[in-house]
């Protein structure tokens, strides 16, 4: 039997369909569930994904209102039971606002944030690479990736800069920094960081390793036609529909249930 994953859809979510497609292609059953639906069907899922978008129109600040939605009651309870949870872009912002990631504070008392980009809070939509910085075995969600895996993806956000106190950043760097922006070869350098993110952070993980928050969208580089065409021009429709690098992260998440 395939694992069942709920993709919560908040008012303003816009990436649920491509997230669902990438998950289904990776071997899980997916249900799109509205964020005000907390029936047993939603509660009994094996794992949860919070997709990208602008939940509640980013009112107050990105992820702030969604972190208090009833759906997050379900996600928080599931995370505490050890179920896999993945937040992508706006979903990652929600996870930080909910305090699940990095998880060093009380629930719904955030200790870090994906804050407005530097410079000037400008929205960035660019193709990037992110390198896995922790041992894959540290997390069931990442265990199927090779060490130092380099994942292609797209960023599309105005608020993706990791921000926290100096003490918290030091702690995050030691224990929670899962992905950093890199070039295509996996070399980490400031030019690869699209948003001024502290530590070059692209993704954080909680202590237990079952909740992952990533700002880039791997599901938007899941097939070759979604990859940068100037780098990998597909010559045929068959080539265009071949898996691309971003799907590896979704596949690794799907294998967390096996």
């Amino acid at each position: 039997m395939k694992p069942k994953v709920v993709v919560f859809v908040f008012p303003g979510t816009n990436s649920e369909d491509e997230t669902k497609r990438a998950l289904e292609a990776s071997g899980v059953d997916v249900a799109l569930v509205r964020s005000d639906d907390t029936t047993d069907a939603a509660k009994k899922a094996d794992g949860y994904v919070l997709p990208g978008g602008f939940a509640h129109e980013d009112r107050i600040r990105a992820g702030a209102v969604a972190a208090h939605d009833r759906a997050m009651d379900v996600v928080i309870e599931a995370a505490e039971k050890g179920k896999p949870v993945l937040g992508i872009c706006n979903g990652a912002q929600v996870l930080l606002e909910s305090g699940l990631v990095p998880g060093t504070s009380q629930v719904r008392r955030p200790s870090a944030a994906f804050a407005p980009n530097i410079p000037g809070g400008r929205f960035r939509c660019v193709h990037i690479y992110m390198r896995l910085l922790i041992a894959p075995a540290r997390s069931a969600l990442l265990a199927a990736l090779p060490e130092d895996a380099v994942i292609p993806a797209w960023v599309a956000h105005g608020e993706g800069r990791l921000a926290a106190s100096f003490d918290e950043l030091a702690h995050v760097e030691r224990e929670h920094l899962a992905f950093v922006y890199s070039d295509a070869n996996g070399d980490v350098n400031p030019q690869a960081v699209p948003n001024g993110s502290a530590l070059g952070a692209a993704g954080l993980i909680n202590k237990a390793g079952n909740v992952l928050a990533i700002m880039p969208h791997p599901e938007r580089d899941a097939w070759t036609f979604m990859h940068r065409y100037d780098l990998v021009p597909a010559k045929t429709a068959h080539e265009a529909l071949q898996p691309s690098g971003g799907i590896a992260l979704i596949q690794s998440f799907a294998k967390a249930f096996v």
Partner: protein
Amino acid sequence: MIEHAFEIRLAIPDNEAYTALATLQRLGVACAGIARTDIHVFGFDDDANTSDLETQLKTVATIFNPNKHRLRAREEPRPNAGEVWISSADVPAVHERVTIGGVELRGVRTAWRATSWRLLDSGGKDVPEPILDQAVETLLCNPAFQRAIKP
């Protein structure tokens, strides 16, 4: 350096304020109304002429639309009683020139912005300070990158 503050408030229904109110009430914060205003604070050299700043601001289309906003100068660059400003925790940088929405603001050396929040009781009066503090802690401010400025 001298600072001048301006508020830009919506003259049409404020959906963001309504969302904040509904969320705060769901979180158990005792309030019946809410008022939200954008605050822009500009720093000048002490001897700068600031007399036409309001006129300049009204030409910045990215922050002011005369059909839906009202702009006025604040008496002081700090919150009034019953009000809290939520702003970035970053210290504003000093620039030779400051440009907002493509408009260079003459004489301005620093610029930062905040969101002003006031919570109201059922009589339209400001709620007691502990209730405002509760709203700040539960929803309005993320201390990881923001600061709450009180009177």
